[in-house]
């Protein structure tokens, strides 16, 4: 279980480093930029009211996003632990598929960069960063779960 949490924490740490050093949006930025525009204003504005206004909603999004990756790690760690034979191919393929799905779904949002990188370069950097997040997650999970 702890292996998954550590994998999630490692991915979280990397995402924060990438945001500060290279302006790569946090996963929560990618997801909100991709989907919030499709929430009709008649639903969007009352929803903000339910959580106490836009600032509280953003605080909630920010802090809960910090917990999201360790939580995903916890779930992934449990699932991996249940595999009778912990073969390397399983998390590698799952990670690759997760990355491909993320790039496909988030594609329009990948062109943004908070340090002002041009859209084409920003998209490449975003995709590479997501791959790095998945890579460190899988790498730590597999390494930490390896029988000693």
């Amino acid at each position: 279980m702890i292996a998954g949490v550590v994998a999630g924490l490692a991915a979280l740490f990397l995402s924060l480093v990438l945001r500060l050093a290279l302006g790569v949006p946090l996963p929560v930025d990618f997801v909100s930029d991709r989907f919030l525009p499709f929430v009709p204003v008649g639903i969007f504005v009352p929803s903000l009211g339910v959580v106490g206004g836009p600032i509280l909603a953003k605080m909630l999004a920010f802090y809960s996003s910090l917990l999201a990756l360790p939580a995903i790690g916890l779930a992934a760690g449990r699932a991996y632990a249940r595999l009778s034979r912990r073969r390397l191919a399983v998390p590698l393929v799952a990670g690759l598929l997760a990355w491909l799905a993320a790039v496909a779904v988030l594609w329009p949002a990948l062109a943004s960069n908070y340090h002002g990188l041009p859209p084409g370069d920003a998209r490449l950097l975003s995709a590479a960063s997501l791959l790095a997040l998945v890579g460190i997650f899988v790498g730590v999970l597999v390494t930490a779960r390896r029988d000693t």
Partner: protein
Amino acid sequence: MNRRDLVLRAAAGALVLGSGGLAEVLRRQSVFGYEGIEVLGPQVAPITPNKSFYVVTKNLIDPRVDRDRWRLRLGGLVDNPMTLDFGEVGSLPTIEQETTLECISNGVGAGLMSNAVWRGIPLRELIGEARPNAGARRVFLHAADGYTHSTTLEKALEPTTLLAFEMNGEPLPDRHGYPARLIVPGTYGEVSVKWIDRIELVDDDREGYYEKQGWQAQRVHTMSRIDVPKEGSRVTGAEVRGAAFAGDRGISRVEVSTNGGGRWSEAKIDYHASDLTWALWSFPWSPSRSGDHQLVVRATDGTGELQSTVEDDSVPDGASGLHRVRVRVEA
């Protein structure tokens, strides 16, 4: 606990500490401390200081764009697509223009509205250089943070639509779009795209970030507001003051009622730099009786159209209705 568990726990602790430290750095840069600050009340001045100027943003943490890395791309349906760096943009002839911006979510009597002097290049100069095709009819705007919005080519070509890079004599602050943003007078603030990095001329009706949600920001409603006295205050008679704004149509008249809208008297407009700015007004009031009073204000825009009395919230095209303030006059 075996050695492996010990190492994992140590790693988890280190990562929690490290992530916590980085998250704290980001939290300090976040919009939590400044988004939604209202410019209201007795301290409202003709020009809003940069630090007080209202901010509404889609972001958790606003961009900090590296000016040396920044490029402005102008393309789409043009014969001469261009990519300009900041030095090239800054070397073009600039103008200074005082313009008020108001957020589309600004409610009746609220303070998501501010006024500043902007320096920049009329966007039509850049678009003219790019030579638009005959089919181009809209402009789609992109920002570094992924924000998008559109406006008409006609609006983009108005001489007052600016690509701005200075605000009140200083480089744009990060939170206001450094190194460059648009200023689109007559529309709500969401059209004045911050951190702009791409301008695309198009022949379709593609929608930007908030447009997809259903916001309609292309025309500011005429509004007026009472800043002094405050709702529920006890007064002995005083000056009533406030602000009025009508996008790019100017304000021709402000009227105040001290009896809930039964009788109207003209207020004095103390400050109104141009049709693009708010009007700050005052009205000397000597109540003839003590007790409860309802103050109401209404404005007429530069075309002679009276402010709407229909009460409507800001969704989807900006709030309307008259601002009313209840006060108690004491003998």
